[in-house]
């Protein structure tokens, strides 16, 4: 189970690459696909490494990505990230 998650609003992205560069655990990579404005958004390549630290969210100048920490897991135990 990953400690955190990241969501991308592809259409807001302008492809600057800040999130990819500064994600401490290299969860993201630039995608080769285009959004409707012609920018390459990032995509998640290593989901299991995401800590939900939200650095990507803090860097994104277009408010197009953010991360969050996993909540308590379904069986009631806390995930690593939420400890």
């Amino acid at each position, binding site marked *: 189970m990953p400690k955190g998650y990241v969501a991308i609003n592809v259409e807001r992205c302008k492809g600057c690459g800040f999130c990819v560069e500064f994600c401490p655990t290299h969860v993201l990579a630039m995608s080769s696909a285009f959004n409707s404005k012609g920018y390459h958004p990032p995509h998640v390549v290593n989901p299991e490494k995401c800590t939900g630290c939200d650095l990507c969210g803090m860097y994104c100048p277009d408010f197009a990505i953010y991360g969050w920490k*996993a909540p308590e897991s379904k069986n009631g135990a806390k995930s690593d990230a939420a400890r």
Partner: protein
Amino acid sequence: MTSQARDPAELGPRPEAEVPAESCDYQPENPVEQFLRTDRMPHIWCPGCGIGTTVNSFARALLEAKLDLDRVAVVSGIGCTGRVAGYVRLDSFHTTHGRAIPFATGLKLANPNLTVVVYSGDGDLFAIGGNHIIHAARRNLDLKVICVNNFVYGMTGGQLAPTTPVGALTTTTPYGCYEPAFNLPALMDAAGAVYVARWTSFHVRQLTRAMVDIFRKKGFCFIEVLTPCPSLFQRKNRMGEGLDAMKYYKEKSKVRHGAPTSEVGLTIDGDIIVGKFVDRERPEFLDLLRSQLAAQLGDRYVEVEHLVCS
């Protein structure tokens, strides 16, 4: 909760899912979202422009400082940075070029219960508005000033700014800038600001912390944030994309809290001294005004908190 991130219509041609959805049924909203006029997104800032990044820190600092958001007002001048006022979902004023500070002065004096944030560009605050900012600092009026410094006039297409480093190309210094630039922290220190810091848009956490600091501090507070302007400053000077500027900030920045502000001037390729340079106490303008009038007028002094008319 945002649905945008998962809206299949928004995924466009991308095949991959953004979120490992099956393993996460909890998805909070992007913390910045509640601070944005989402009906105005996407914003006008260029790809890789650093202004938006500073807004993330601003949003998180507002959350962390637990301010009553109904009582936070943002005042901007004119420029790319000046557009911040139009994008934040707060009482917000997009004034005239250079005059955010005096507008904010009237706003604050008429309602001291407001937290008044001035968010504007280096040209706006220090060229056309230079007179106002030094006087507001001198008075020590309780304003929180966030100055986005991209070394150039962005909105008008890349002209010389009072911060343009010697040697840099701009559209109005086509043979290179020969004017000495302002050292903004030194200027603000000398003028009397009680809090002076410099960060870059690479330093998102430190910038957030500094913003929390100034939301909690009374008096004239000033944060300079260096940001990439890939479209103009960097393009002209062959400095690459926004990301290259961010990496450059990462590489060249040296944190020196308490550094004498006279030593933090910037050059085109030198070290970037960042940190909190000034954090001191001085009597605040309204406190001075009130104590003077109360001392002189005694019972005849009528102190009114909010000058609201009926």
